[in-house]
């Protein structure tokens, strides 16, 4: 390459950087034109994930007092329509086949440990004979194969599924339903209502409402909030941000979102850069993993702590207590992992269960903090306070040691 073309290249690269420097769009996604001629619109983030009807439904559910045994939130339900399971009743213990999306994050690991303790209780009482688990390691394709394997080989009396993603898992769940055996779905849902029951806490929109309202009430219009999001495209996470964003916009809060991959180094860099641009008054997280790193970034910069919403992860809650910040810990009730097996036991004995089992989703506020931490003394950082296992055998040692079964 001669000198002239080298100069051209230099000018070209300089131009590229200038363009990069001058794109002053906000980081919320913009409408993109797609190149393929399709009938289906690849729409803007808001309308794809934001659903006013579901938003209103969940907003209402937050106000309803749950039905069910007091002090046992994992057995409570909201606005339930009960269905009969008499057809599925069996004599003796049944085999549960569990197709698990993965145990690749601490929330799921906590749930998995709790579920196994619950399993012990149900096996001892003769409700469940065994539970065979196949872990899909976060892959849709693998989970579909796992469900098909169970259908063909498993000798299952009940299919228990925690779907990796909603639309992709639907055909496989329908195939499971077609076997005539009961199907229980929990955590993320699917696009069919053929399962006997679908267990989940109120939902992402409610999370978004709880967290956004908390921040809005503690901040003023024009204040900057940094939203730390783990990954794009996961529906339970996207719905949280979708509703929070709408509420922030309405209240005039300047909210900007970043994807972090839950990497604490990445979180620190993002916050440091934001602090260098100006004041940051609030932090919103769609999942609490990495919350400590975010607060440390404020410490390193020597600026006052933000108002923050994290999650019921012990690391965040300990830091919250130690620093005395104004914070809220929304929850995605971890005890649903217990409810899944309890529902299976009910179905085996022919008891009725809610068609859509909506579990309570009670955020942890500042006044509740101390009591909650007292129940979770000695728990590791990755533990979640709403694990609901205080009355299970092995409490607290099994969760403290955190051996993955």
């Amino acid at each position, binding site marked *: 390459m001669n000198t002239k073309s080298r100069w051209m290249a230099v000018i070209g690269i300089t131009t590229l950087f200038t363009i990069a420097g001058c*794109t002053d769009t906000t980081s919320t996604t913009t409408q993109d034109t797609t190149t393929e001629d399709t009938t289906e619109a690849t729409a803007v983030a808001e309308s794809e994930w934001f659903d006013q009807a579901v938003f209103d439904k969940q907003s209402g559910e937050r106000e309803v007092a749950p039905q069910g045994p007091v002090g046992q939130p994992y057995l409570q339900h909201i606005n339930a329509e009960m269905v009969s399971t008499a057809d599925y009743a069996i004599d003796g213990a049944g085999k549960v086949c569990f197709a698990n999306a993965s145990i690749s994050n601490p929330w799921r690991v906590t749930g998995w440990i709790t579920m196994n303790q619950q399993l012990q209780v149900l096996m001892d009482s003769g409700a469940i004979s065994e539970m065979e688990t196949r872990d899909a390691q976060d892959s849709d394709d693998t989970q579909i194969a796992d469900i098909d394997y169970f259908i063909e080989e498993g000798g299952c009396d009940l299919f228990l599924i925690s779907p990796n993603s909603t639309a992709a898992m639907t055909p496989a769940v329908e195939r499971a339903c077609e076997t005539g055996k009961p199907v229980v779905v929990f955590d993320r849902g699917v696009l069919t209502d053929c399962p006997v029951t679908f267990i989940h806490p109120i939902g992402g929109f409610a999370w978004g409402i709880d967290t956004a309202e908390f921040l809005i009430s503690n901040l003023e219009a024009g204040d900057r909030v940094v939203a730390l999001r783990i990954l794009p495209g996961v529906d339970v996470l996207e719905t949280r941000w979708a509703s929070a964003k709408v509420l922030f916009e309405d209240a005039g809060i300047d909210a900007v979102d970043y994807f972090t991959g839950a990497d604490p180094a990445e979180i620190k860099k993002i916050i440091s850069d934001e602090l260098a641009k100006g004041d940051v008054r609030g932090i919103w997280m769609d999942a609490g993993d990495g919350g400590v790193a975010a607060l440390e970034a404020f410490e390193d910069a020597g600026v006052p702590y933000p108002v923050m919403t994290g999650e019921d992860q012990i690391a965040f809650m300990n830091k919250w207590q130690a620093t005395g910040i104004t914070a809220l810990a929304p929850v995605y009730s971890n005890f649903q992992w217990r409810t899944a097996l309890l529902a299976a036991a009910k179905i085996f004995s022919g008891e009725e269960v809610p068609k859509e089992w909506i579990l309570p989703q009670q955020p942890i506020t500042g006044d509740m903090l101390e009591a909650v931490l007292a129940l979770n003394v000695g728990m590791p*950082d990755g533990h979640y306070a709403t694990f609901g296992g205080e009355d299970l055998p092995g409490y607290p040692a099994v969760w403290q040691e955190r051996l993955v079964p």
Partner: protein
Amino acid sequence: MMREIRNSAGKSVARSVAVIVDPRQAVFLVLILLLATIFFLNPGFAEPSQFIRFVQRVAPIAILTMGQFFVLVSGEFDLSVGALIAVQVVVAGNLIGQDESKSIPVLILMFFIGLVVGLVNGLVSSLLRVPSFVVTLGMMLVLLGGVYFVTGGSASGNPADGFRSIGRGGIEGFPIFGLMPWAVIVLIVCTLLASYVSTRPFGKTLIAIGDNPETQFYSGARVWWTKTQAFMISSTSATVAGILLVGYAGVHPSVGRGYEFIAITAAVLGGVVLGGGRGWVLGALAGAFTLEALFTVLNFADVPSTWRDSVQGIIIIAAVAYSAVSRNGIRRKGTNSASPEIGEGASASGRSAQNTSPSHD
């Protein structure tokens, strides 16, 4: 007379600019442009106290890139460094806990673990002749799986503040900068060490091995041991990066995720050629800063989160293509004189380099 002075002044300006534009120094040009963009977007960044914090956060990846330099330049890959960082971070978190007196023994253990990993990588690839890409890929899977198995996928506590201050703290009240982070001091020391090693016979042998594998038979050096040492340097750099990251980021198994790709990309940006035989340590260092500066520009410019990867991809290809195409231009013009570029200062444009490795880099 005036015309002569003007001519020679013009010529020396042209020559110095040409030096900067020289593809071997391209990475410095890109770095300067990026830093200028950052200062333009956020003037506060140019303050010494802010700028030194930027250096602090680049330090881990910069050290890692310099370590990867030694492996890349000998013609190999080390894909295990990201996973090794995660292992080191978790070891520090779990074994030190809140007991600061354990810091020194655990530090020694961490360096030992790093050296063992490097030794295994090196021996399996040079003695068992398994391609380093494969060995280190396998090692990465083993280490990552192991770390997740032990931690159950979650953080297990940040160790005592004393230990963390290496990555997070520094010397207070330092002139100009306010806080002189320990991380920056560590980085400077590592840079000096790396530059020194690269100019020693060891370093030159590495580059010779990478440049022309046939020298294996004729050089008289124990090639397997030399290459293994390069892997051990790389693993040690991952250990140091891990120590700094424990302080900066805390303990979490996702710390270090993807860093092997970042280090390789940074080294290539800095002029290291994949396949070996060319590159210099300071170039690799500059590459790391350039990449981090690019990420910072994207943060400051409010580029939508989701487009960052695309921008990163374009710039990486552009920067590497620029130096690759220019390098070939020089080569075709060149004579037979070999010019060892490693560790040497900037050379004026037009100087050629001999290349005996297959042209498909």
